[in-house]
């Protein structure tokens, strides 16, 4: 008799140890690094309504996913603990249960229908730009598609446009290993590299292209990635809120997200959002700078030609 008791106790102890080990492991991998490090569990947002839309869609999915995870893994761990072999227990020889199986198939399908519905409901917030704000840059391009296709093929995707058609367009060109931004049409096509300057409260449409290999445009707080594929034009947009310091602006950072060669890690993308008036002043200065640089280059070329160093 005592022997049987001790073996039962032994079994219970073993089960306890297993449960302990399991929960310790789960605790270790889930709980400890989690809150202690304040790990990010949702996408970044705040730089543009499309990023906010993605983040809120993600959060809904995260809630549903967490419930599913807890239920499924909870059931698994419960059955592993509850149905461990013990003396005298007999395994139930069940081959299946059609009704039960149909019900969880329908349950899974139902969850997916809900997810799809939520996604399509949220989609217009993410894909379609709203109107620019009252303080935004007021350039109406009359609802026409911004920019001409030029020498590149266009994909069947089209340039996004807000309901009132008021937007500005910046051309984003990826090449190994720098982003080039050309401002316009409507601004006389000044350009800059790596850091884009953009007006706040304005719908800024990006025409994304590449000249060599595939790159991917990504500023996490301003929305998702859009690949820059040679031979294609890809579009996205952002509408950044007015920064606290409208002169120096607020800088949003990101980097190229598609492997583009050895220095892929250092192909940064920055967007400095300033007030529309500061933006226009910057454009004017940039144009002067570009003009001066071109003149200097021209002068240098003429000098070198005169000295016979270049033909």
């Amino acid at each position, binding site marked *: 008799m005592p022997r049987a008791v001790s073996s039962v106790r032994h079994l219970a102890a073993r089960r306890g140890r297993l449960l302990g080990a399991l929960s310790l492991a789960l605790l270790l991998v889930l709980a400890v690094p989690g809150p202690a490090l304040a790990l990010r569990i949702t996408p970044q947002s705040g730089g543009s309504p499309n990023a906010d839309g993605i983040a809120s869609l993600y959060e809904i999915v*995260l809630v549903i996913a967490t419930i599913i995870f807890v239920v499924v893994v909870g059931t698994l761990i419960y059955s592993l603990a509850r149905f461990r072999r013990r003396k005298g227990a007999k395994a139930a020889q069940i081959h299946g249960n059609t009704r039960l199986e149909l019900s969880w198939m329908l349950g899974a399908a139902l969850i997916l229908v809900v997810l799809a519905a939520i996604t399509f409901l949220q989609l217009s917030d993410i894909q379609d730009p709203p109107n620019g704000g009252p303080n935004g840059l007021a350039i109406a391009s009359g609802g026409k598609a911004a920019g001409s296709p030029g020498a590149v093929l266009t994909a069947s995707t089209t340039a996004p446009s807000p309901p009132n058609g008021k937007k500005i367009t910046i051309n984003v060109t990826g090449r190994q290993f720098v982003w080039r931004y050309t401002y316009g049409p409507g601004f006389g096509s000044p350009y800059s590299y790596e850091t884009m300057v953009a007006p706040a409260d304005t719908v800024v449409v990006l025409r994304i292209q590449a000249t060599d290999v595939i790159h991917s445009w*990504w500023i996490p707080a301003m929305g998702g990635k859009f690949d820059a594929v040679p031979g*294609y034009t890809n579009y996205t947009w952002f509408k950044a809120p007015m920064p606290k310091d409208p002169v120096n602006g607020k800088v949003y950072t990101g980097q190229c997200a598609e492997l583009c060669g050895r220095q892929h890690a250092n192909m940064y993308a920055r967007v400095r959002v300033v007030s529309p008036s500061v933006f226009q002043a910057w454009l004017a200065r940039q144009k002067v700078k570009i003009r001066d640089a071109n003149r200097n280059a021209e002068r240098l070329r003429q000098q070198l030609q005169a000295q016979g160093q270049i033909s």
Partner: protein
Amino acid sequence: MSATLEPTTVRPVPEVIAHEVRAPRSRHRWIDWVATTDHKRIGILYIVTTLVFFVLGGVEALLIRLQLGVPNNSLITPEHYNELFTMHGTTMVFLFVVPIMAGFGNYFLPLMIGARDMAFPRLNALSYWLLLFGGIVFYASIFFQPPEAGWFSYTPLSESTYTPSGGQDAWIFLIHITGISSLVGAVNFYATIVNMRAPGMSWSRLPIFVWTLLTYSILLILCLPVVGGAVTMLLTDRHFGTSFFNPSQGGSPLLWQHLFWFFGHPEVYIMILPGFGIISEVLPVFARKPIFGYKAVAASTVVIAFLSILVWAHHMFATPTPTVVLGFFMLSSFLIAVPTGIKIFNWIATLWRGTIVTATPLYFAAAFIVIFVIGGITGIFLAIFPVDWQLTDTYFVVAHFHYVLMGAAVFSIFAGLYYWFPKMSGRMAGERLGKASFWVMFIGFNLTFLVQHSLGLEGMPRRIYEYPVGAGWDTENLISTIGSFVLAVGIAMSLYNFARSIRHGAHAGPDPWKANTLEWFVYSPPPVNNFDVVPRVRSLEPMRDIRRQVARQTGQPAGTGDELTKV
């Protein structure tokens, strides 16, 4: 037609029964291995070779993690870093996960269906040697210049303008050679399953692992020719002046992506479906219960395979693509969650009300479910294309597919290795070390990859060789690097366990797990001819029937010898 209608008492055709055929030994034992057409030896060659590649790919992964352990690290040059992740991805996909499943299939498919060998034994040997030579061609590039355009080698980066080195060509030849190897193997599996099943083994009595191998083979036959064509086009682009993928000459870089992922996504299921099969074999044996909903589990395998060829463009959500196409591929990717969910529920229901024997294979199988649920759920996030715009090409994706492939596929492979080791070696693998190895692997795996979800959300893209100090990614990367070494220790413990147990393990006997399928009917390791007499199959669990029959014939009470008590 219907084998079950034959009278069972009369042997219709006289047949010669050979007992315990042993192959004549050559003077040199290695010649026996090189010249072998025995499916079991080929299976072992496959498994050992692929494990060697697994270790190589693992070392590459550890180097990658070392480089990323601290910000602005200069341990590895950008060039070598790109080479490392290209070699790592390619090795793990083409030289480890896909072929080790073929290794299990080679060894156990004929045994499970009661055949004496594969349908085409010499083709079988050919497919192994092609795999080995494909791997050698690929790894030879490390003495020159390895490929560096990533395992999916997106054009135009992989074109000769941007990647002139021969390493890219070595990669192309690897795809060709291992592709032919897999094709030949897949045809062989298919022919064997269709034609060589034991009498009485109807389709509804086919072990789930064999069902998964059947779908694995069909998927390989459907999808490998596509990637074979694509890499040939890349080869002619690189060397013979064609412009399939060159936009300045009217080609399209997106064509490459469509062709590659048309193969590449089914490839994911090619890697994981046999893993599902292993889990579906292991769980019933250690729960001492039949698989719950056999037909649903088998049918969901086929449905997953079918849907898997309709989802490829979910790898391309950030490319210039019309919204309606994005929506289609989101919904088709969602659909896969239904048959996958059915499998998970049926596995848990298989454990429910069982008498679970906590042996090492069960540990790996149970952890497989946990890990696969996480990988599956993050897959739903990625299938929602607006959400994918944030997550694609970040460490979130890296975490997701390592949960599915490193976690789920590799844990299923280890479940299979521990489950079948006694059959292959005749010895039991050490249980204590096996369980210890399991816990170290499980903890190391989650340490490595769980934090990577956060890294992705914090903005860290894939495939960057360094990151600045201020990016805020330091702690997670350090945790991940430490975790990867813990994981490596866990894997090394298991490999040591196997190496040691081959000589020192307890003798296993033919049926140590009191399992359900026919491979446990024969000796461990099995004789060359497998079966002296092929038993007639009367249910999904022929071994269980045989044990009962033995108990009946020896006058013992029913259920004797059917209990799995000590492990």
